[in-house]
């Protein structure tokens, strides 16, 4: 590595050789060990790094963490107690005519529950109320 290339890298990437492009680190390290000029360039870069490190940023608030957590996806429900299983059991209780009548509504609900979902018991209750108002007939 030439001294000029070393200086250019120090100008760009600062004093910490671990932050330099991977392909240049070994050659840079070798030059530092043998060249006083290279060490002087690193010292200049280190002085600027130290000034930059005087910029301080406050940590995120606990309130922000909670707000972000509140928007996170819920675990997918699995097993016999899953929302999908409960919905299908409920639909089967309406009989064939009932399933055809509310097929579009149920289809939308099943699709909604296929991916990461926020469907919960309240949403299912709302679906029941909506469908229950239709003239479904049957047992």
């Amino acid at each position, binding site marked *: 590595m030439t001294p000029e290339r070393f200086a*250019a*890298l120090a*100008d*760009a*990437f*600062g004093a910490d050789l671990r*932050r*330099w*492009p*991977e392909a240049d680190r070994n050659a840079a390290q070798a030059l530092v060990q043998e060249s006083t000029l290279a060490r002087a360039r690193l010292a200049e*870069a280190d*002085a*600027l*790094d*130290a*000034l*930059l*490190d*005087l*910029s*301080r*940023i*406050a*940590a*995120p*608030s606990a309130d*922000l*963490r909670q*707000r*972000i*957590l509140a*928007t*996170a*996806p*819920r*675990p*997918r429900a699995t097993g016999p107690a899953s929302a999908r299983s409960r919905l299908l059991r409920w639909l089967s209780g309406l009989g064939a005519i009932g399933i055809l009548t509310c097929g579009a509504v149920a289809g939308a609900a099943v699709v909604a529950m296929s*991916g*990461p979902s926020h469907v919960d018991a309240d949403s299912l209750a709302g679906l029941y109320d909506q469908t229950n108002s239709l003239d479904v007939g049957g047992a």
Partner: protein
Amino acid sequence: MNARGQTRDDPDEALLRRVAAGDPAAIQALIARKLPRICALASRMLGDATEAEDVAQEAFLRVWRQAPNWRFGGAKFDTWLHRVALNLCYDRLRKRRERPSAEPPEQVDPAVGADVEVEMMQTSNQVQAALSELPERQRDAILLHHYQELSNIDAAAVLGVSVDALESLLARGRRALRVRLQGLHS
């Protein structure tokens, strides 16, 4: 890792898979791992803690939407997340330019008192002001490489430039900062 920052070895892969499955512990771990970094980037770009928090919150909404669809083996998740945060900040900066701001970003009041903490905050504000005076791309290159500690390849990928272009941006930005920060002592 190739020159576009793509790698098969993404340190966030395992965590992201669990987040996609809605694993509560993984979600908390991802927030702990990424939130301080995204907040720091947004704070330095926007100079306003409240706006930075809004950016962070929006960025995580996109994480939750993207997690189930994430394709591993392509760009690193951290690179993508930085790109999202950067773009959200650009949107806000563009809106600021389109309308005169009613209030400047929050600053420490130097009249509060000459204790050490205030002095450190004033110095921090001076560094922050010097950064904000740089041309946008030079500033962003320094934020991504020096403060966010992204590699040259990852920082270049976030900015959508070559590694040579990133090196040039860093060198010019750092030279300008050396001049602006003369007289400031660490």
